[in-house]
């Protein structure tokens, strides 16, 4: 292992080591002081952010071509780490309230983050597979973390079974690709494809199966059905974490593999992706309109947003637009992540024990009694529906722009029409909060409030000056091609 190798995985290693040490340290932290664990975990993630920041602008192919460190990976790593910190801020009080405060929770989260970071740097299909499993297994456990509750256990089992099922497809796909190209390194695959030595039938079948595997992770239709159940059953902060980080990780690897290694395949796969994107937007948005459980509603919303992100993936198949597509996808991920975390934070602050406080009816009167919380949720809902003066608008703007420029106006149209549907159910939340009388019960917690207010401010302020973030997203792409 060279120094460059070492340096390229330094953040991952740090997180892993930190998590292991925390697992040990947790044994000595008394049960009523578990906030200590949370804090330590957050610090660890913050250290990870610092280390990742130091990697900005670097490009290195390490471990004999198995890992790639580039600004794309760094950008995503920071997203995972920050979302981890936010998830901890959400979890800390929540776990205590629900009586499921155990130190392993944070450790598992850190493992999962390490897996995601590995995934974003993966440049070899073995690493890809391992990283996916590495990030998934802790999540299966986290989903079932509210253990005595059956819903949580059911969610965990469903997630686990279906996750493994989809891993089977992924694995089979990898095997086929290996068969087609004689290699499992991305560079090798590319070379083999360009050299025309690859068996295309096997290759396309393999790529399709891999697409299914990743599609499951990011919850696009028709591989999405687990998501609402799992998000609803899991502890809420874990759902938030999944909704943001796993989605980001899934898209990261999709981009990485399909754009780096299979660019010549883009044209052939495009119609499939097109269909998947359109179907996802329709399914996610249409199924969301009748939901009354907020967690479920947000789950469907996250499916819908996966559809929008898929749109960028479609656009990327146009070689002239690849760069822009990727940068707009990254931007959208940030916008979506920030907003979603805010929204889930609001859900967390209203949730009561035994799954109470999650219904739309429980939101009646929030706007009147807690105007700031209401305003924040309003901002999040508007941002999710893509209304201007929120970061969500710019996200959609760039996404649709890319789609239009890449020549997929029809898909953009589907996206626009479905986002009209989405307005309906996002507004329904607003209606309940502001236009119906009620006596909502809200949990006050400073960390939670910080996330809510911070996210709301960020969502608005970043929309007034959108350039900086977009530039960062654009730079992150440069090394990808």
């Amino acid at each position, binding site marked *: 292992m060279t120094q460059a190798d070492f340096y390229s995985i330094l953040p991952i290693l740090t997180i892993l080591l930190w998590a292991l040490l925390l697992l040990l340290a947790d044994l000595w932290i008394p049960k009523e002081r578990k906030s200590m664990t949370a804090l330590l975990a957050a610090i660890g993630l913050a250290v990870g952010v610092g280390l990742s920041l130091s990697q900005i602008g670097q490009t290195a192919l390490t471990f004999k071509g198995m890992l790639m460190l580039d600004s794309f990976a760094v950008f995503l790593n920071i997203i995972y780490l920050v979302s981890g910190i936010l998830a901890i801020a959400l979890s800390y009080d929540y776990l205590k309230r629900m009586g499921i405060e155990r130190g392993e929770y944070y450790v598992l989260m850190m493992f999962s983050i390490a897996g995601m970071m590995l995934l974003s740097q993966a440049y070899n*299909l073995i690493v890809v597979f391992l990283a996916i499993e590495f990030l998934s297994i802790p999540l299966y456990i986290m989903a079932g973390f509210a253990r005595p509750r059956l819903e949580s256990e059911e969610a965990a089992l469903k997630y686990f079974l279906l996750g493994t099922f989809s891993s089977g497809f992924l694995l089979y796909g990898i*095997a086929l690709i290996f068969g087609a190209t004689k*290699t499992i390194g991305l560079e090798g695959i590319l070379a083999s494809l360009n050299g025309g030595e690859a068996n295309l039938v096997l290759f396309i079948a393999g790529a399709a199966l891999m697409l299914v595997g990743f599609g499951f992770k990011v919850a696009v239709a028709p591989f999405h059905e687990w998501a609402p159940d799992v998000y609803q059953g899991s502890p809420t902060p874990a759902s938030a974490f999944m909704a943001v980080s796993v989605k980001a990780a899934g898209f990261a690897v999709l981009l990485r593999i399909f754009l780096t290694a299979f660019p010549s395949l883009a044209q052939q796969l495009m119609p499939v992706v097109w269909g998947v994107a359109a179907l996802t937007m329709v399914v996610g948005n249409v199924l969301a309109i009748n939901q009354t459980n907020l967690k479920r509603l947000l789950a469907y919303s996250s499916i819908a947003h996966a559809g929008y992100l898929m749109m960028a993936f479609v656009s990327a198949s146009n070689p002239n637009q690849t760069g822009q597509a990727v940068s707009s996808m990254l931007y959208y991920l940030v916008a979506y992540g920030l907003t979603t975390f805010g929204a889930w934070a609001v859900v967390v602050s209203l949730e009561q024990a035994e799954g109470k406080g999650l219904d739309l009816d429980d939101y009646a009167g929030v706007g009147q009694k807690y105007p700031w919380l209401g305003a924040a949720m309003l901002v999040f809902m508007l941002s999710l529906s893509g209304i201007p003066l929120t970061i969500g608008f710019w996200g959609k703007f760039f996404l649709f722009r890319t789609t239009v420029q890449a020549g997929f106006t029809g898909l953009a149209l589907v996206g626009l029409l479905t986002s009209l549907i989405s307005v309906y159910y996002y507004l329904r939340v607003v209606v309940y909060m502001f236009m119906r009388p009620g006596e909502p019960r809200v949990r006050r917690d400073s960390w939670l409030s910080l996330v809510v207010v911070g996210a709301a401010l960020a969502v608005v302020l970043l929309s007034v000056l959108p350039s900086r973030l977009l530039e960062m997203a654009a730079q992150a792409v440069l090394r990808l091609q």
Partner: protein
Amino acid sequence: MPMSYFIGLSVVMFAMGILGVLLRRNPLVVFMSLELMFNSANLLFVAFSAYHQVLDGQLFVFFVMTTAAAEVAVGLALIVAIFKAKRTIDLDQMSSLKG
């Protein structure tokens, strides 16, 4: 033996795995079916590895086996936990979350 035999066998195994997942209600059997799917992939890896004369595939199989083991560990733990609470492990009973 021609390569297609291996592929054919592997596809059949994979399909059996899928059918097992789709048809069985006992999670333990479903686990086994999942293992079958994994192993059909493994078979493919090994076969291709031999066919192409590269070691990558065989190497892959080791990793797959380990991760599969890890997954089973988690899965079994979940089943035990659920059995403790519900006294049944029928998968079709696990449908309170829906809609």
